[in-house]
Each structure stands twice: as C-alpha cells, then as structure tokens.
C-alpha cells in the first residue's frame, strides 16, 4: 500500500527542490526567449551570412540530444579551460537548446504577419527597429503564444536532466530520497504531481494571455 505518512514527511524537501527546478527553468526561459528572438531575426535577415549562421545553429542544436549538449558543456568545456559550475552549465545548456526552438516559433509568427502591416509602418516613415518594436513584435505575440508555451513546458520538463550533473533539482532530490528509502512509488507519484502542477501554471498563463491578446480581434 501507499505510505501516506512517508509522503507527508518528505513533501517539504521535494517542495524545496521545486524552487530549484522552477528557478532554473524560469531563468533559462528568459534567456532563451531573448536569444531566440535574436536568432529568429538573424534567420530572417536578407544578409546571407547572417541567415545561414542562424540556420546552422538551429540545425545543430535541434539535431543533437539535449543530454549530449549538457555533457559537452559540463564535461568537455573544461578541456578548453572554461570550467562551469553545475548550475551555470545547466542553465546555459537549457537556454541554448530552447533558443533554437524558440527562434523557429518566433520566425513563423513574424512571417505570419500580413506584409501590408509592415508596409504601412514603412510608409509612415518608421525605421526597421521601430517597425519591429511597435508593429511586428506586438502582432507576433498572439500566433507565437501557443507554441511558445508548449516549448516552455518542454523546457521545464527537460530541466530534470540537470539532475545528472548534480544540481539538486526536483528530479535529483527525488532520486536521492528513493535511493535511501526505497519508496519509489511514493516518491515518483509526488514528483510527478509536482511537475504537473508547475507545467499547469504555464498552461494557465497561456489561457489568460490568449484572452488578453485577443481583445482586438473581430468578435
């Protein structure tokens, strides 16, 4: 049977570990969002050298396993003289990885804006940055939102991989608890529920943002 007392006893420790998972995820989310937008703009640049550089980046990052990327940054980078602590390595890997996916999400959202909208901005005398800031980005938010949140959820779940390089996140804490208590079912149950709660928060954020962003669409 399920040992409920055990679950009550260990829940504070797992909750504490949620903070680590959430912190790593949110930090990586912020960094990869900014980087992803930058890469998307490079990809859309008329300059061949910029767009192909971005294309190659996305190709490599999306085409290789996240775990391999984590090992490369944590174990292989020190050979080049750059030693990162597990936290930094984890956040850096997750950010680089997600930025490739985000860039494709942003690129398709930007390309979905009718050319007339940007032509109107150009015709009124806006420069490229003004057009981007005032027209292109606000108009891309709505189409980008669902796939963006989807990728954010993936990012949060993928953050469990940093447990392998000894970051005391939710997954790593769970492993250390069941390896000493052997209560695998209880620990996995609690851990699963906690991940689900965290991803649900993102889901809720999506729903409320979608509503806020659709105020101007035809009713």
């Amino acid at each position, binding site marked *: 049977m399920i040992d409920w007392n055990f679950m009550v006893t260990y829940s504070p420790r797992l909750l504490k570990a949620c903070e680590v998972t959430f912190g790593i995820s949110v930090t990586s989310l912020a960094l990869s969002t900014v980087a992803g937008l930058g890469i998307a703009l490079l990809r859309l640049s008329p300059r061949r050298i910029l767009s192909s550089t971005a294309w190659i980046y996305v190709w490599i990052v999306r085409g290789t396993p996240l775990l391999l990327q984590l090992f490369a940054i944590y174990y292989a980078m020190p050979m080049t003289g750059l030693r990162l602590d597990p936290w930094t390595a984890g956040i850096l890997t997750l950010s680089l990885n997600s930025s490739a996916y985000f860039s494709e999400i942003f690129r398709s959202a930007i390309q979905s804006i009718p050319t007339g*909208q940007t032509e109107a901005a150009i015709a*009124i005398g806006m420069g490229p940055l003004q057009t981007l800031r005032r027209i292109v980005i606000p108009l891309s938010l709505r189409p980008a939102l669902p796939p963006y949140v989807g990728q954010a959820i993936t990012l949060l779940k993928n953050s469990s991989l940093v447990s392998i390089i000894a970051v005391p996140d939710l997954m790593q804490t769970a492993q250390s608890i069941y390896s000493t208590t052997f209560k695998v079912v209880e620990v996995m149950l609690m851990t699963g529920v906690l991940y689900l709660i965290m991803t649900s928060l993102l889901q809720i954020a999506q729903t409320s943002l979608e509503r806020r962003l659709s105020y101007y669409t035809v*009713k």
Partner: protein
Amino acid sequence: MSIVSFRDVSKTFGSHPVLRNVSLDIEEGQVVAIIGPSGAGKSTLLRCVNQLERHSTGEILIDGMPIGGNQRNRDLIRLRQTVGMVFQSFNLWPHLSALGNVMEGPVTVLKTPVAVARQQAEALLKQVGLADHAAKYPGQLSGGQQQRVAIARALAMKPRVMLFDEATSALDPEMVQEVLRVMESLAADGMTMLVVTHEMGFARKVADRVVLMANGQVVEEDVPETFFTNPKEERSRAFLSRVLSS
C-alpha cells in the same frame, strides 16, 4: 514647383518590365488620377514614390530630392515621412485602436508628445467623420470606416503628398462614397494627391489631370474634360469605351 517628379523611370521584376520610361510631374496642390487596365503598372508606379518598390532606372524626385538608389537609409526614411499612403486593403494595425493607429506615426516617428498627438488624432478622426469611433479597434469597424482611419493615419504625418492605391477597390459599393467624399474634401483643401483609381466619376470630377497607363507606359495625360470627351490615343478610347460601358 513639382512635388513628385518621375524622370524616365523604369522597373523590372526579374526580366519582366512593369514600368517603361515613365516621366511625370505632379505640381503642388494638384490631384492626378492614374487610370488604366490592371497590370498597367499603376500601383507599382505609386509604390516607387515611397520606395516600397525600388525602381530599376531613372530618377524619382520628391520636393526636388531624389529618393531611392544608393541613398542612406536614414535619408530614405526621412523622405518617406513626407509621403502619405493609403492602401487598397487599409492595412490598419489591428492591435491599436483607431486613435492609436492615427497617433502611432507622430508619437513613434516624429516624437510628438502623446498629449499633443492625441489632440491632433482626435481632430483628424473628426475630420474624416469618425470622432465617435476613436476607441474602436479595426476589427470592430466597417471597411469604409477603416479606410477613413487609414486616411487620418496618413494625414497625421502632415505629408506633402498623399498616395491613394486603389483606396476604394476593396470596399462594398455603399461604402465607396464615404471614402471618396473624404478624398474629395482633401483635394478641395489643396492637398497634393496621386490617385490610382477605377472610379472614373471621381477622376473626372476631382482630378486636375488624368493619366492613362498601359503596359508600364504613360499612354496619354490630359485635363479630365478633354481626356474623357475627346481622348487622342486609340488605346485610351478602347479603355474608356470598355470601362464606361460597364
């Protein structure tokens, strides 16, 4: 003094010529209607004025200043601000209210203080008969209303010349008149206007000059009275008999 001059302007898309050696001068305060069959290059000609399309050869002058070519981006942007444009499909920004659309240019581009820009925008919306719709979003407005907001948006930049690219072609028939009336009153106020249109009645009544284009060339240009009653070119007669009989 010409506000817009085309000097021997040509434009090709790939190997396909769309404009062939077009020369045309639009004087201050004039309304010039450009008519002709579709594919004649009318819209392309208009879009070259603010360089939404780049012309291949020849020269386009705005107030005596050449636009396009290897011009620095900053100078190109400054020149564009003196040219207002109204599109066939309105192209209002859907995330901004009618007022927001009209204020956007002055606030973002000209750095006009928000309070001042708001006052100007309200006055402009009133001018196009939409004072009561300032807070609405484009999705909540009819086509005719959207196009009038688009005209107010272009006017907010205090342009030297206004370009109308088939401004009424996408509208339901009953909304065409409300937009034409706004355009007519602009013309009466002395605005320099370059109007690509299929509205022959408007061209005849409001334009100071009518230009007929076909195959990327100017076929004939004249004052409306002469052009419509006594066209010189065979091509013009053929076009007119087709549009006026329909």
